[in-house]
């Protein structure tokens, strides 16, 4: 019943407690309750600061990509880090509407942050992610993502390491082989990246963007592979928007090797969209929360052709 890594600050308390029954850490970041919530565009803290205008997080009149320490961090040194990654100084748009050049540069920014944060002694795992849409809890509409540098290995990457053991090698390599052999759930591919709705997708339009070659992290990718990753991701999210002809909410999570176990892992990006139809959301309810078992009402073999067609329309 002890608090671990807890730290009081003038703004609240940040720390973690171990939930014995679930065998997992729960993180408390009390001051996040006060974080900026869906401000009007003119008060957006992620926009550039115009001369004479309201100060924002980025005190320049223009910028390309900005990364800064989260003002309301879930993790902070010496127990991890929380950063915000602003994709553009334009308030409107999305990851999908970035220019190709900007999306490619973003891959290098991700790589830089993974390298720098992962090298810290207080960081065990670096998660780069984006929440898009109020349906998944977005509080700022300006195109941006986040990075959490965890002081411990979270459950999902731990399960991926366990899958490696279970399958007798790199699990994403094996699953990619199976998806390519089957082919019916593949929705897009280029020279270096394959995008598919996984065999056991939990969300109706869940998709995984997987490097063809075994690359534990962004650090091992050749420059051309980073370009291909940016292309695959943009093709997918543009297809999402075309699927129901509306901005498509999702959680996008970059899965990489734990920073202290770098020989393990296979770079892939998982997207979890909550929409199961144009206007219906999948909720995590009794079975999902009480038993930990997802109940899906859509077969991946049904959603993949629809998503594949949407990607083709958006291309």
């Amino acid at each position, binding site marked *: 019943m002890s608090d671990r890594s807890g730290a009081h600050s003038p703004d609240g308390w940040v720390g973690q407690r171990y939930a014995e029954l679930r065998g997992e850490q729960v993180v408390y970041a009390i001051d996040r309750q006060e974080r900026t919530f869906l401000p009007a565009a003119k008060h957006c*803290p992620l926009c550039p*600061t115009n001369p004479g205008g309201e*100060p*924002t*997080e*980025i*005190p*320049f009149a*223009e*910028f*390309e*990509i*900005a*990364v*800064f*320490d989260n*003002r309301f961090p879930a993790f902070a040194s010496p127990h991890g880090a929380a950063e915000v990654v602003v*994709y*553009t*100084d*334009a308030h409107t*748009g999305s990851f999908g509407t*970035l*220019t190709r*050049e*900007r999306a*490619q*540069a973003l891959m*290098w*920014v991700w*790589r*830089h942050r*993974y*390298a720098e944060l*992962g*090298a*810290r*002694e207080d*960081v065990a795992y670096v998660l780069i992610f984006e929440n898009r849409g109020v349906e998944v809890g977005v509080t700022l509409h300006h195109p941006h993502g986040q990075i959490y540098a965890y002081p411990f290995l979270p459950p999902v990457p731990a399960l991926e390491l366990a899958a490696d053991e279970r399958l007798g090698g790199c699990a994403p390599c094996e699953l990619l082989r199976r998806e390519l052999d089957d082919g019916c759930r593949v929705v897009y591919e280029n020279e270096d990246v394959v995008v598919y709705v996984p065999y056991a997708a939990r969300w109706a339009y869940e998709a995984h963007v997987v490097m063809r070659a075994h690359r534990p*992290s962004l*650090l*091992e*990718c*050749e*420059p051309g592979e980073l370009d291909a990753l940016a292309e695959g991701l943009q093709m997918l999210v543009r297809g999402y928007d075309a699927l129901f002809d509306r901005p498509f909410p999702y959680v996008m999570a970059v899965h990489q*090797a734990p*920073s*202290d176990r*770098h020989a393990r892992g296979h770079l892939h990006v998982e997207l979890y969209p909550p929409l199961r139809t144009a206007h219906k959301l999948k909720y995590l309810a009794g079975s999902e929360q009480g038993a930990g078992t997802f109940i899906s009402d859509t077969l991946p073999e049904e959603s993949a052709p629809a998503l594949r067609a949407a990607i083709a329309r958006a291309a």
Partner: protein
Amino acid sequence: MVTLTHLPSPFTIPLTLVSVKRNRSAPQIRAGEEDGPPETFGPVTLIRYVKDDGRALILYSHGRRLGEDGRIEDRPRA
């Protein structure tokens, strides 16, 4: 822990990294708070700043050169 020694080369995109200090109500960079010279990371150029409240801010630029004052020349819009 991973290190930059894992990075393949050559890189092709310049990166600009900036960290800035600001206080909670007025996020301004104090004059002369650049936290080191501009750096390159592959094809990206970066400049680090420190905000008034101690938080880091990093600005990245791609495909553009840095001017003598460290600012990015010919910045493209997204």
